[in-house]
Every structure is written in C-alpha cells, then in structure tokens.
C-alpha cells in the first residue's frame, strides 16, 4: 500500500490514542448505556433483556409489579442539583474577588500567589476532606475552640449536615472556579477599565458594565467545571454528609457496591452523564455566540 510519509506519520502518532480511548473510554461508556437498559438479575448480575423500568424508577413510571416509582430518587437527584448549584454560587462569590485581588498585585507577586493558592489542590482529595472531618466533627477542632471560648455550651453538630457538605464541596472545588476566572480577569485589557473610568464611569459602574461582562466566559467555564463534579460527587457527602445528606453519587455507589443492582446504577449514572452533556453543549453554543458577538 502506497501511503505517503505524511499519512504514515499521522497514523503513527494518532493510532495509540485512537485505539486506547476507543476501547477503554468509549467502550465502557457504551457498555454502561447498554447496561442501563438491561434487567437486573435476582442476586446481582444482569439478564440480557430490554428493560426500561430502570429509568422509570428515577423519572416516574413503573410497571407496578416489580419496580415501584419512588419519589425519593427524584428528591435525591434534585437535592444533588441544588447542592451543586449552591456550590457554584458559593465558589463564585469566593473566587471572583480573589481573582481581582491577585490581578491587582504587583506582577512579580502574582505568579507566586497563584501558586500558593493552587498548591493545596495538588494534595489528595481524601487528605483535604479529612482536614474538614477533623475540624467539623463533634469532638473536633471547631467545637473545641467554640467550647473553649465559651461561645457555645455544648458541641454543635455541623458534620453530617448539608452545610458540612457544602463547605467540603466548596473547599475541594475552589481551584476549578478560581483558575478560569483568574485567566479571564488577567486577560482583560486594563485600558478598557481605564477608558470606562476616563468616560466618567465610577468603580461600581465600571465593574458591572465592563469588567464583569468581559470576564463572563471565565465565570461560565468555572461554573461548568464546578457544577459537573459537584453533581456526581459521592466522597464529600459520604464523609461529611453521612446518611443524612445523600446525593446521587452515593446512590450510584450503593447500587454497585451494596445493593448490587447494576442496571439501575448504570441508569443513574447515565442520567448524570446526560445532565453533563447538556450543560457542555449549552456552554459551547453560548461560547460560540459570545465569540461571534465580540
């Protein structure tokens, strides 16, 4: 076969990723989607029959015989969406001013401060969450201090509440909000801010009319990057939320590791994936529009 050298080197460079990702990335996703339409076996495992009740259990139809529609799944799903959404807002409110602060520092400080800010996030997720377990649990650091200072008379329960989950979630996902926002704040042409000020815009007007609209792409990217991992998270609710604050991730984990209903777990997982894909597509279309507009 006569392949020219260009085609040959292209094939050589591209085939490892194509083969590997084709088999081990796309393959598993396809199998998972197939599984979500199979009938769960009686004692774990699957029967190879088409079975749409897995989705029915989540979204609200049931055969009334084997599968019952239980609104608890929808409720957990909605709670997950709510927590993920609040987390986006919280991290945004924390990170945007920080990005402005860093951007206003003298240039030789900036790289260093960005490094200091992102450094802890190279530390293992378990370790970071363990820090909060230690602080928030009843005999933990926070209660010790509050009791010691006499602010409270008996330990307050923070761990295993939604607040604890939100704290942990925000802590773990901060850099995913910070970095995109900082990138777009840093990219913002400072002469535009000066031009606004020159034309009579005060600091607040300048922020809302110029700075914020022009850094919105960074905010959108950050929101996506925080929302998606928040939604499917099961480690944070597991360690800080306990059995009280179940999220969809915990449900998936249970189906696989204790309930052994893999098709139902797959269906839940496919649902998460669909939410993610929808958001990404909306984001990309929006991004295209913004690029056309600017």
């Amino acid at each position: 076969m006569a392949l020219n050298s260009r085609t040959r080197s292209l094939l050589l460079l591209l085939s490892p990723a194509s083969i590997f990702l084709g088999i081990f990335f796309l393959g598993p996703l396809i199998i998972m989607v197939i599984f979500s339409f199979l009938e769960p076996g009686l004692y774990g495992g699957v029967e190879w029959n088409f079975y749409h009740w897995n989705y029915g259990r989540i979204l609200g139809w049931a055969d009334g015989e084997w599968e019952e529609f239980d609104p608890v799944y929808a409720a957990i799903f909605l709670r997950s969406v709510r927590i993920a959404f609040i987390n986006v807002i919280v991290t945004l409110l924390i990170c945007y001013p920080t990005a402005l602060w860093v951007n206003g520092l003298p240039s030789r400080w900036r790289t260093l401060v960005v490094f200091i800010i992102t450094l802890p996030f190279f530390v293992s997720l378990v370790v970071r969450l363990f820090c909060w377990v230690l602080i928030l649990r009843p005999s933990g650091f926070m209660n010790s201090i509050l009791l010691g200072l006499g602010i409270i008379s008996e330990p307050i329960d923070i761990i295993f509440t939604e607040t604890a989950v939100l704290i942990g979630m925000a802590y773990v996902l901060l850099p995913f909000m910070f970095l995109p926002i900082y990138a777009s704040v840093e990219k913002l042409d400072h002469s535009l801010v000066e031009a606004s000020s020159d034309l009579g815009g005060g600091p607040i007007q300048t922020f809302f009319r110029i700075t914020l609209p022009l850094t919105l792409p960074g905010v959108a990217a950050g929101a996506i990057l925080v929302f998606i991992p928040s939604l499917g998270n099961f480690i944070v609710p597991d360690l800080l939320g306990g059995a009280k604050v179940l999220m969809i991730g915990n449900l998936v984990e249970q189906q696989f590791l204790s309930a052994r209903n893999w098709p139902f777990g797959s269906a839940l997982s496919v649902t998460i994936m669909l939410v993610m894909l929808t958001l990404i597509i909306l984001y990309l279309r929006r991004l295209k529009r913004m690029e056309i507009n600017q």
Partner: protein
Amino acid sequence: MRQTDTIAEVKGAVKSFAAPEGGKVRALDGISLEILHGQFVTLLGPSGCGKTTLLRTISGFEELDAGEVRIAGVKMTNVPPHRRPVNTVFQNYALFPHLSVDDNVGYGLDVSGVARNERDRRVNEALDRVGLSGFGLRKPDQLSGGQRQRVALARAIINRPKLLLLDEPLSALDRNLRQTMQLELKSLQNDLGICFLFVTHDQEEALTMSDLVVILNKGQIEQTGTPEELYHQPATPFVAEFVGDGSLFTGRIENTSDRPVLKTNDGLCLPLGRDARVGETATLLLRPEHLRLAPDQNDESLGILEATLEQSVFHGAIRNYICRLSNGALLTVALDASDTAYKRITTGDQLRLAYPRNLPYLIKQSGNGT
C-alpha cells in the same frame, strides 16, 4: 483674565516608578506646562521620555509625587479619573469589545444617566462628525483600523471635555491613513474648539498638527515652541537632532582672517555669520537643505566644506547625497532631483559643498541643553 484663558496647567510635576532592576526611575522630573484655550499641543519625545506618564497624570491614572495638575483652574490632586473633565483617546483605542459602536460612543452619557433622547441625539451627532453615521450597530471588531480610531474619537468628545488627551492614537495606522487622520484631527479640533493634548514620538506628526510642541527628554522639557521655532531655532542639540534631519558640529568659535569660524576638536573649520561671538563654545546645525554645490567663483557669504560622496538616495522631488567629511563625519545634502546638472555626480567624487554663512542656526552651549 488669565484664568479663563488657561485650560490646563501642570506645575512642578514629579513622578517616580520603581525600576524593574531595583531603584527608582524618574519619569517626570519637574515639569511645568500651560495649555491655553483652543490650542493643539503636542508632547513629543523618544519612548521613555515621560510623555505618556505626563498624559496619565492629567487624565488621573497616575498620581504625582510632587507638583500639581489644574484643569480649568481646579486642582486635580486626589480627583479620580471619572471625575475629571478630560477624556482620552487611547493608543489601542480601548473600544469595549462587547458593546456596539453606538453603545461605545454613548458610554460616557450612559454612565452619567443622560436621558435616552438626548443621548441618542448626541451619539448620532458625534458619529456624524467623525463620518461614521450608520455604523452604530456594528461591533468594534467589524471595523477597520481607521474606523475604530474614529469611534474612539467620537466616544471621547461626546462628554464635551475641556481637554482631549490623545495617546499616540495614530501609531497603529498605516502611513496613508495616518496622514489623512492628521488633517482630520486638526480640522476636528478647529471645529470643536477644545484643547487637544497629543502625545507622539513621530516628529512629522507633531510638526504637521500642532500649535505648540513640547519636547520631552528624560522626564524634563527640552524646549517648548511652535513647530517653526523648533525646526529653525532648536534650543538644545537634542532638539536639533530629534526634529528634522541635519548634522551637528560642536566646537569653539574663533576668528580667522577677520571672520568667525567654528573649530571642532577634530580639525574641521566651519565659517560662521558675523553675529557669532568669538570665544564661546557652540553647536552648529546644518540641515540638508542648507547645503548646495559650491559655485566656481569665490563668494565671501558662503561657507565651504570639502567632502566625498558615499551614496545618493532618491526621494522623489529631491535626492539626498550622503557625503563624508575630512573628519569622518557624515553629512546629508538635499538637491533638486530634476536638476540635470547633478546627474554627473557619482559615488566617490570629491564635492565642494557650500552653505550661506548666516543661515545655519548656532546653538549656544550655555543654553539649558546638555
């Protein structure tokens, strides 16, 4: 009354920046300046001379370490940019990429809450004035460089500032467009009757448009004057070199056969006019147009220089002859390119160059130059 005539005034302005390699750099080193009603003033100087810093202290983006800025008689110290009655045309135009041309131009009115009708009327008027009617709905990136320039201009004049600051606004345009815009800016300034303070490093631009040119060097004013004054009577060697072409010769003025000459250290002897004061050290400026080929007969009113032609460069109407003098220095002579008499001259020829003794300008060393 003096106060009504002075639009802006800078007194003893000093501003230092931390240098990247440590220590401090004085960007402004005691500058005083007065801009009168209706003037087109240009700040001219090489990059790093402090001209942009001076502009930014007037617009309010930099605060002075010492000295003060007054606009329309009001002291501007601690007045933030958005409260100053000046507007700026930025070097890169700084058009808001997310806003249409209309909204860019109307921005100054929008932030100060001008009523919709009034706002639209003034936006249209401003766009009309810069020749961009009908472009209102476009985004800045759908405009050419020249059109962006005009939008920036319209945006800056809509607030009717007392003083318009222009920070090298033409530097991004190509040559032809730049020349057109120079004329347009000048006539716009005449129509509006507001002061323009224009920053540039391009001497040609400065000479074309300005009523008054301020030449800055190393944070200090070298000379302030009309374009003619700067060209014909430069106060310092720096100004002479920066404005126009020409060669400088520094030496002592001596008397030779009853006529003053300038003797340089490397042995060159340049005849001078009668009014030169013997005994002083001075710098002589010879511009290309001062020089001609010497006539055969002797003429007492001419100074003669012997030189070898190294190169001739065609410039359309004129041809520049670059000649080397006996001391090794280069001298440019501009001759009429259409004159066939010069056709015979070829590279390597020995030339006798002549200049009217009274014409060249003598810069006194005692001046404020270095």
